[in-house]
C-alpha cells in the first residue's frame, strides 16, 4: 500500500470565504471536510465535491477542489455519473437535509442500495435556511416554523435508520461542534469502499431556535465511548438509530465491507471509463453490423 502523505488544511483553501451566517454549523463541517481530505493526502485535483442547492450546498465554492454545484436534490445522481466515469476520483457529496432527505431522497436511497463508492455528508440543520426558515424533512414534530406556524404535524425522517435499511455500508453521525471527531468520521467515510453517510448536526443559528448548539451539547455522546458497542452489528446500529431524547448518539453506527456497485460493471475492470479509447475495436464494430444482416 502506498504511504499516505498528509496535506495541510491550507491546501484546500477556497477562492472566496463562505457567506454563511456567523456561527453557522456549516463552518465546522467545511473545516472537517478539509481536514479529512488532508489527513488522507487527497490532492485537490483528485477530489470532487458535489452539492445540490441550499446554504450548505454552497460548500464546494469554499474549498479548493473540483466541484459541481448541481440542482436541488440531484447531487447524488450527478456524483454517481462522475464516479462511474472516473472511479479514480474521490467523490464527496455535500448538502443539506432538505436537499438529501426531501427533494432528493429517491436518489439517496437508491445510491445506498447500489453501495456505490460515494461519501455523503449531510449538514442536517432540521430547517430550510436559504429560503428563510420553513420546516424540513428532519424538523422535529410540533416545532413551529414559517411554514408550520401551528407546529410541525409530521414526524421527522430518521436518516440513520433509513441508511441502515437501504444498504449503506458506512453510517455515521457527527456534530459540527466537534470538528475533530467529525473529520475522523468523514475521513473514515472517504476511505471506506462503498456508500458512506455522515449525517451531521449542523445548527442553523438563524432559523432553528430549537436544535441549537447547547441543545446538542447537552445530549450528544460518542458511540466510540460506549462500552461494548460493535459497529459491525447492523441490528445494534438500528436500535441505536432510534435513540433520540436526553441522549443522542454520534459517531460510527455501522461499517461493513460489501461489494461495491463499481465491481459489477465489466467495463470498469479496464480502468476508469474516461481513459478508455473512444472508438470500439473494429472487429467489435463489424460484429455489431453482422448481427443486423
Amino acid at each position: 500500500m502506498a504511504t499516505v502523505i498528509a496535506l495541510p488544511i491550507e491546501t484546500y483553501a477556497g477562492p472566496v470565504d463562505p457567506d454563511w451566517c456567523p456561527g453557522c454549523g456549516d463552518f465546522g463541517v467545511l473545516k472537517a471536510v478539509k481536514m479529512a481530505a488532508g489527513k488522507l493526502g487527497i490532492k485537490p485535483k483528485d477530489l470532487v465535491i458535489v452539492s445540490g442547492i441550499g446554504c450548505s450546498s454552497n460548500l464546494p465554492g469554499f474549498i479548493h477542489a473540483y466541484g459541481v454545484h448541481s440542482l436541488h436534490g440531484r447531487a447524488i445522481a450527478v456524483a454517481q455519473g462522475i464516479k462511474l466515469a472516473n472511479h479514480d476520483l474521490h467523490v464527496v457529496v455535500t448538502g443539506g437535509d432538505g436537499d438529501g432527505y426531501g427533494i432528493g431522497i429517491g436518489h439517496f436511497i437508491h445510491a445506498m442500495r447500489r453501495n456505490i463508492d460515494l461519501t455523503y455528508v449531510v449538514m442536517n440543520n432540521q430547517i430550510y435556511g436559504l429560503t428563510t426558515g420553513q420546516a424540513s424533512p428532519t424538523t422535529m414534530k410540533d416545532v413551529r416554523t414559517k411554514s408550520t406556524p401551528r407546529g410541525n404535524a409530521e414526524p421527522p425522517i430518521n436518516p440513520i435508520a433509513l441508511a441502515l435499511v437501504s444498504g449503506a455500508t458506512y453510517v455515521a453521525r457527527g456534530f459540527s461542534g466537534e470538528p475533530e471527531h467529525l473529520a475522523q468520521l468523514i475521513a473514515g467515510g472517504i476511505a471506506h469502499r462503498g456508500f458512506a453517510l455522515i449525517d451531521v448536526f449542523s445548527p442553523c443559528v438563524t432559523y432553528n431556535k430549537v436544535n441549537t448548539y447547547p441543545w446538542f451539547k447537552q445530549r450528544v455522546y460518542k458511540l466510540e465511548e460506549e462500552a461494548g458497542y460493535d459497529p459491525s452489528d447492523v441490528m445494534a446500529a438500528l436500535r441505536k438509530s432510534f435513540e433520540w431524547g436526553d441522549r443522542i448518539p454520534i459517531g460510527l453506527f455501522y461499517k461493513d465491507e460489501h461489494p461495491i456497485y463499481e465491481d459489477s460493471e465489466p467495463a470498469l475492470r479496464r480502468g476508469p471509463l474516461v481513459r478508455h479509447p473512444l472508438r470500439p475495436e473494429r472487429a467489435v464494430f463489424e460484429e455489431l453490423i453482422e448481427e443486423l444482416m
Partner: protein
Amino acid sequence: MQEVTVGIGGAAGDGLDKTGDTLAKTAARLGLYVYAYNSYQSVIRGGHIWLRVRIGEQKLTSHGDHLNVLIALNQDSIERHAREVEPGGAVIYNSDKLKLDPTLLRDNVLPVPLPVSAITKPLGKVPPVMQNTVALGALLFLIGLDFETAASVLTDTFKHKGQAVIDQNVAIARAGYEYAREHFVPLGYRWTYTHIRRPFITGNEAFAIGAVTAGCKFYSAYPMTPASSILHWMAAHAERCGIVVKQCEDELAVVNMAIGAGYAGVRAMCGTSGGGFALMTEAIGQAGMIEAPVVVIEVQRGGPSTGLPTKTEQGDLNQVFGASQGDYPRVIIAPGDVADCFATVVEAFNLAEKYQLPVIIMSDLLLSEHPETIEPEALRYDVPIERGELVTEWDESQGRYKRYAFTRSGVSPRALPGTEGAAHVAATDDHDEEGILISDVFTSPPVRRKIHEKRMRKLEAVLRELPPPVLEGPEDAEVTLIGWGSTKGVIREAVEKLASEGIRANHLHIKYLFPFHAREVSEILRRCRKTICVEANYSGQFARYLRAETGISVDAHIRKYDGEPFEPHQIVEQVKAILQGKPRTLDVTEDEAREIANHYIRTHLDDDARPGRISRLERDGFEEPLWNVEIISRETGQRRGRLLIGVETGSTYRWQPEESAS
C-alpha cells in the same frame, strides 16, 4: 418497380415478429429493400398486432399504401384486414383453426387455406407457434422468394438453440413451401436479386450503434416505450463495447448521471420518451449552465400525459423547445430516417463536446422502432470524433484557471476533474469566469450579462457549422410540403405519387430545429407558391415555430394524431383536397366507423360479434348524421343488432340488439 407488401396479423405471443423478421432478412439477404412497421396493441382485439413488411427492388421510405398478401394468425386478422388485400393478392391462414368468409375478399384475391396439422404431421409433434413457419414457407412460394436464403436466415436465428431446432424450423418452412407449390399458383412476382447485403435496422438500434461508434461510454435510462429498445441494445452489448449502462430509479437520476459522466469527461447519453423528458428538463438547463456535454434522445409517442405508449406522434416539439427555465444554449436535431439516426448521434456527440452543451435528438415511435434496410456505407466505423478544446494541465503561476473564460467564440477550454492545477466549481447558480457564484454576495449585473452572452454566443458557431435545409424537387412546383423528423420518407413518397398524378410538388425537410436557419428557410419559403406543413400532431407545432422564426405562415396544414403513421396516399389525398379548395373535414370516415364499432365490440360485447354492413343515416333523431353499423355473428353471419355512431362527434350513441333493432 417490383414490390410487395405482406401484412401479418395475430395475437401478442404468436411469434409474429420473428416471422416478420425472417421474411425481412430473407429479402434483405437477396439484395432487396425492406421497410417494416409494427402497429401493436392497437386496432385488433386483445392486444393483437399488425405487422406490415414491404419489400421492393428500390429503396423504400415508408410502409406504403398497399396490402398484397395477408398472413392471418387469428380470426380477427382475417376480418379486419382481408378486405384490404388488393386484387392479385392472397390471404394465407391456418384452415384448421380459422375460417375465411369469401365475401370479405375483393375480386381476384386468392384464399390460401393451410391445413397446418396435416402439413406438419410427417414432422412429428410441433408446437402451435409453428403455424407461422408453415405460413412463411407458403408465402415464400407465393411471392417467389428464394427458399434456401430463408433457410439460411432460420439457421442463423436458431443457431443458439442447436441443430435440432434449426432442422425442425427449416423442415416446417419447407413443408409449407411444398404444400403451396402443390396446391397454388404463384402470384407472379419476378425479382432481380442483387445479393447486396444491407443491414436491417431500427432507428433505436442506429442510435445505439452510432453512439458506441462515436465513443459513447455511458448510457442511462429508465424504461419507457418507445425509447426502451435503446436501453435493451446497450445493456446486451455493454460488456463487449465497454459501456456502462445504468438503469436508474427515475429520469431525474438518468439525466443527472449522464450530465455527471459528461462533466467528468466521458461521452454520455440518455434516452426517454415525452413523459420522462418532462422530468429531465430542469437538468437539461443545468447542462447548459455548467456547460457539460450530454446527448439526450427524446423518442416521442402519443401524448399528452401517459397518452398512447405504443403509438407514434410528433407532439413534443413545444415541450423540447420549452424545456427548462431561462435561456441556455442547446442544440435540437430531428433525424429523418434510420441511416440519419446513426449520423445524427455521431454529430450530436461532436456538437455536445465542442460546444459544451446539451444536444437533444428528437425521434418518434415510428422512426425509432420500425426496421428498414439501409445502405451498408451508412454505418461507418471511422466516424469523425471531435472533442473540442480540452485543458490537459494548467500552470497555476499563470493565474487561476478560468473554466468559463469569456472568449470570442463563447467556448471556454474545458478541464476535466483530475487535471492538475485546474480545480474549479461548475455551478448551476450563475457564476463568473472562474466559476465563482454571482448569485449571492458577489452579485454583479455586468458579469451576469457577459457570461450569459458568452454561453449563448456558442450557438452562432453551431449554426454556421450546421448545413441549412435544401428544397428537394422542382423549384417551380405548385405545392411545397414541409416536414421534420420521421415524416421525411413518407412525404418524399407522397411527392412522387403527386408527380405521377400530374401535380408538381417539392419537399422541404428540416433536420436542425435549434439553432434554426431562419434566413435560409425564409428565402426558400418566399419562393414557394403554396406551402403545406405536414406533421403528426394536433396543433401544428412546427408550423407555429416556423412562423415564429421566419414570420411566414404556411398556407395549409396536414396533421395526424390518431397514433398511426402517415401513409403516402393520405398525404396525397389531402394535398389534392387543399389544392381543390375543399374545406378540411374531421368527420368520421366509414373505415373509422368500423374501427369504432370494433372498439365497442371489444369493450362491451363478445368474441362472436363483428361489424357487418355500414350505411349512413341522416340524423334520425340525433343532432348529426349517423353511421349505422350492422353487427353480425361471426359464427352464423346472422344480424345481432346495430350501432349508431355520430359522423361528426364519433360518439357511439346507441347499441340496439336485434330484438329492438327494427
